[in-house]
């Protein structure tokens, strides 16, 4: 397919954002697998990849079952001038995003990282390669960027080994999981990952998307991309419910969880519902010893994008108050199409302190980078 590439000359307005920001969701891509990923794969896995490709728990190897709204789900103006996929050119990322948007801290969340591959051994090898690649091509070249530790999360033992391997490496600031898992993330098969993350003093981020094989709604597969897209919020509610009700936060009291790219306005109603259910069903879940809202308040952060846009916009102030001004981490989702522009995404009057924490301080505190 030929993708029409837009002119980029006007896409970065220079120096428009005064407030320094942390962007907690940036998606880097390799320029090409052969050049950037193959060096970190053994001959066996290079050969496997060429013969079998990427086999996930969905039918199409070359693209998502729900075609995206734009090619590669990317901003039309984010294709690097020297070719390659959006997010594959550090120099252009600096020029279009990091510099003009005053990004002081950028968290890399690679999406095609081996996670969710059916073949567990391949997933393990590919995650390792992507971890090496992030350091070699990104974080060692650009100190504002930090890497996410990719783990083959359906295989807890391999995931723990990967976390232990990198523990203490300052390039990594979090362990990354995808949200569409085979089983709800609170289930015990995933507990060793949380244990290892706590041991390595790393938060666990869960990014919307992935291939768990289960329909994206409890009532089957919808027809449209917009439904899948909106449904990431519902999916995230289910995984968070699982973590709370299965007792993950009781079992791992130092665990910090970051929910990435699922919006946030749904959280207050979920907390109210879970609190009510907890009161009613305590005999079923005696291991949950505190109200779910308290556990969530203590253990869970959310990235802001895609930020909800109520009318009037001031309703969002109520929502953020119900969540807690210290629990939201600003994110743009660069270079994806549902990018939130730091200069325009929150058109509300805030105190200087709130604005600073919302866009930067909360993330510095959480990642211990203040």
């Amino acid at each position, binding site marked *: 397919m030929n993708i*029409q590439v837009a*002119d980029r000359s006007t*896409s970065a307005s220079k120096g428009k954002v005064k407030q320094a920001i942390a962007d907690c969701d940036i998606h880097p891509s390799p320029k090409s697998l052969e050049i950037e990923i193959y060096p970190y794969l053994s001959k066996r896995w290079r050969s496997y990849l060429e013969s079998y490709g990427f086999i996930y728990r969905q039918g199409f190897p070359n693209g998502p079952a729900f075609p995206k709204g734009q090619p590669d789900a990317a*901003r*039309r*103006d984010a294709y690097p001038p020297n070719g390659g996929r959006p997010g594959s050119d550090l120099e252009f990322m600096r020029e279009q995003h990091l510099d003009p948007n005053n990004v002081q801290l950028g968290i890399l969340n690679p999406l095609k990282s081996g996670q969710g591959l059916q073949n567990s051994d391949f997933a393990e090898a590919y995650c390792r390669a992507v971890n090496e690649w992030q350091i070699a091509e990104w974080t060692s070249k650009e100190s504002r960027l930090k890497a996410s530790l990719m783990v083959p999360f359906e295989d807890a033992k391999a995931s723990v080994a990967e976390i232990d391997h990198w523990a203490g490496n300052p390039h990594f600031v979090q362990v990354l999981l995808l949200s569409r898992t085979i089983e709800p993330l609170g289930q015990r098969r995933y507990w060793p990952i949380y244990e290892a993350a706590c041991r390595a003093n790393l938060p666990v981020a869960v990014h919307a998307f992935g291939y768990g094989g289960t329909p994206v709604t409890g009532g089957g597969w919808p027809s449209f991309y917009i439904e899948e897209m909106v449904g990431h919020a519902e999916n995230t509610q289910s995984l968070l419910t699982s973590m709370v009700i299965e007792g993950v936060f009781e079992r791992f009291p130092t665990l910090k969880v970051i929910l990435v790219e699922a919006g946030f306005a749904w959280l207050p109603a979920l907390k109210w519902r879970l609190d009510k259910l907890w009161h009613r069903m305590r005999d079923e879940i005696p291991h949950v010893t505190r109200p779910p809202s308290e556990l969530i308040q203590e253990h869970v952060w959310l990235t802001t994008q895609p930020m909800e846009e109520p009318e009037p916009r001031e309703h969002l102030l109520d929502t953020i108050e119900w969540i807690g001004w210290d629990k939201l981490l600003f994110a743009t989702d660069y270079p994806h*199409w549902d*990018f*939130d522009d730091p*200069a325009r995404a929150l058109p509300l009057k805030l105190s200087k302190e709130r604005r600073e924490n919302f866009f930067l301080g909360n993330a510095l505190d959480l990642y211990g980078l203040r």
Partner: protein
Amino acid sequence: MAKYVVSPAKDIPPGGRKLVEVRGRPIVIFNLDGEYFGMLNRCPHQGGSLCNGQLVGLVQSTEPGEYHFSRQDEIVRCPWHGWEFDIRTGHSMCEPDRIQATRYNVGIEAGAAVTEGPYVAETFGVTVEESYVVIEI
């Protein structure tokens, strides 16, 4: 209101577009089959550059499952969040009465008329032989 000469007409062929700046405002000029239209180069949503948007057709429907496609390349889709705007009217496709891109009146004037004024040509020389895109602000 003043009239500004912003470009030689031949620089924006049919199907083409050009970003100009008038009194500090970035304005994108579109040429649809010989008719010229001007739009502020900022999406009313989050300020995406409409000059960088795709030109698409208009998709409408009279009932679910029916798709009517018309007006190929007369709609510009913001490169960021995909909001669509009618280049002729500036109206958004999602909520045409409430959400609109800022439009400017654009016309074509012969070089002879332009050189006599009251036009302002900021950045280039004007010759009698050519025709020019003129924007009213």
